[in-house]
C-alpha cells in the first residue's frame, strides 16, 4: 500500500460531505485550511475505518457544536452518537461513489473520539476539507493507503449503488 496524490478522491470526499449536510438542510461553505478552528472549540470526532483490496484507511469527521445541534434529529440526544452516525453516513456515501470507480471497500462500525489537540497533519497528500456551517465548522479527512498502481478511473465501476434516500421494495 502507498499514499497517493489522488486529488479525485479529495474531490469526492468534498462533494459527499456537502451532500450529506445538505440532506439535513444545512448549507456548508468551503473554507481555507487556515480557518480550521483551534482544537478547544471542537466537540467530538466520528471515525470510520474501512478496508479493501485497493484502498484502506479511515475517515475522520470533526465538527464544532453548532452544526451538530442544527442537524441532530434528536435535540436532546448525544452529540457523540450523532457525529458517529454522520461519519457512518458520510463513509456510506463515499463507498457508494467509489463503487462507480470499481473500488469496493468494507466498512467498520463508527467510533467516537474526544480530546484536546486533535487535528489532522498538514499533509499535502490528504488535505482535510474544512467547511463553515451554522456559525461553526465541519472538518473531514480521509486518511488512506492504496495498492501499487492504483488510480481512480471513472467508468471502470461495477453496478451503480442505490442512491441515498431511496427505498427499494422487493
Amino acid at each position, binding site marked *: 500500500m502507498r499514499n497517493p496524490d489522488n486529488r479525485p478522491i479529495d474531490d469526492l470526499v468534498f462533494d459527499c460531505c456537502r451532500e450529506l449536510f445538505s*440532506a*439535513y438542510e444545512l448549507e456548508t461553505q468551503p473554507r481555507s485550511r487556515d480557518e480550521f478552528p483551534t482544537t478547544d472549540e471542537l466537540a467530538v470526532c466520528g471515525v470510520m475505518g474501512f478496508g479493501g483490496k485497493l484502498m484502506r484507511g479511515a475517515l475522520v469527521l470533526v465538527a464544532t457544536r453548532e452544526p451538530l445541534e442544527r442537524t*441532530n*434529529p*434528536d435535540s436532546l*440526544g*448525544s452529540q457523540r*452518537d*450523532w457525529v*458517529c*452516525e454522520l461519519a*457512518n*453516513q458520510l*463513509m*456510506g*456515501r463515499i*463507498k*457508494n461513489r467509489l*463503487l462507480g470507480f470499481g473500488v*469496493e471497500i468494507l*466498512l*467498520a*462500525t463508527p467510533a467516537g473520539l474526544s480530546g484536546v489537540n486533535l487535528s489532522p497533519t498538514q499533509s499535502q497528500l490528504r488535505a482535510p476539507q474544512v467547511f463553515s456551517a451554522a456559525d461553526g465548522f465541519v472538518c473531514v479527512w480521509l486518511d488512506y493507503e492504496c495498492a501499487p498502481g492504483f488510480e481512480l478511473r471513472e467508468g471502470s465501476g*461495477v*453496478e*451503480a*449503488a*442505490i*442512491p*441515498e*434516500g*431511496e*427505498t*427499494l*421494495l*422487493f
Partner: protein
Amino acid sequence: MAKKILIIDDSATIRQQVRAALTGASYEMVEAADGAEGLEVITGRDDLAMVLCDVNMPRMGGLEMLELVSARGMLAKLPIVMLTTEGQPALVQRAKAAGAKGWIVKPFKPELLIATIRKLAVM
C-alpha cells in the same frame, strides 16, 4: 392496539428519529442496538408487525441476523426492511435472497418510512 415495529440500529439517534416518526403515525416501537439483541427480541416475542434493521453493527450485523431469522423460517410472518447507509448492489441482492422485503438508504424521510411501514406491516 398499536402495531409494534422493531428497530435495530446501533445509533441511539437513529432509533430516536425512527421513534419520533412512528409515534406520530400511531405505531409502537421496540428497539435493539445490534443484530444479536435484535435476534433475541424477534425470537422472544410474537407481536411484532415489522422489523427495520441496520446493516453494519457491532457483535452481529443486520445481514447475518436476517439470514439467521430466515433459516428459522420466521420471515413468512415478519417482514424485515434494511435501513442502512450501504447502497452496494451485492449487499442488496444478499438481503433480497435471504428474504428481506425492502432496502432503504439513509438518510430517510419520515413520511417515506411510514409509507413503507403502512404497506408492509402485518397483523
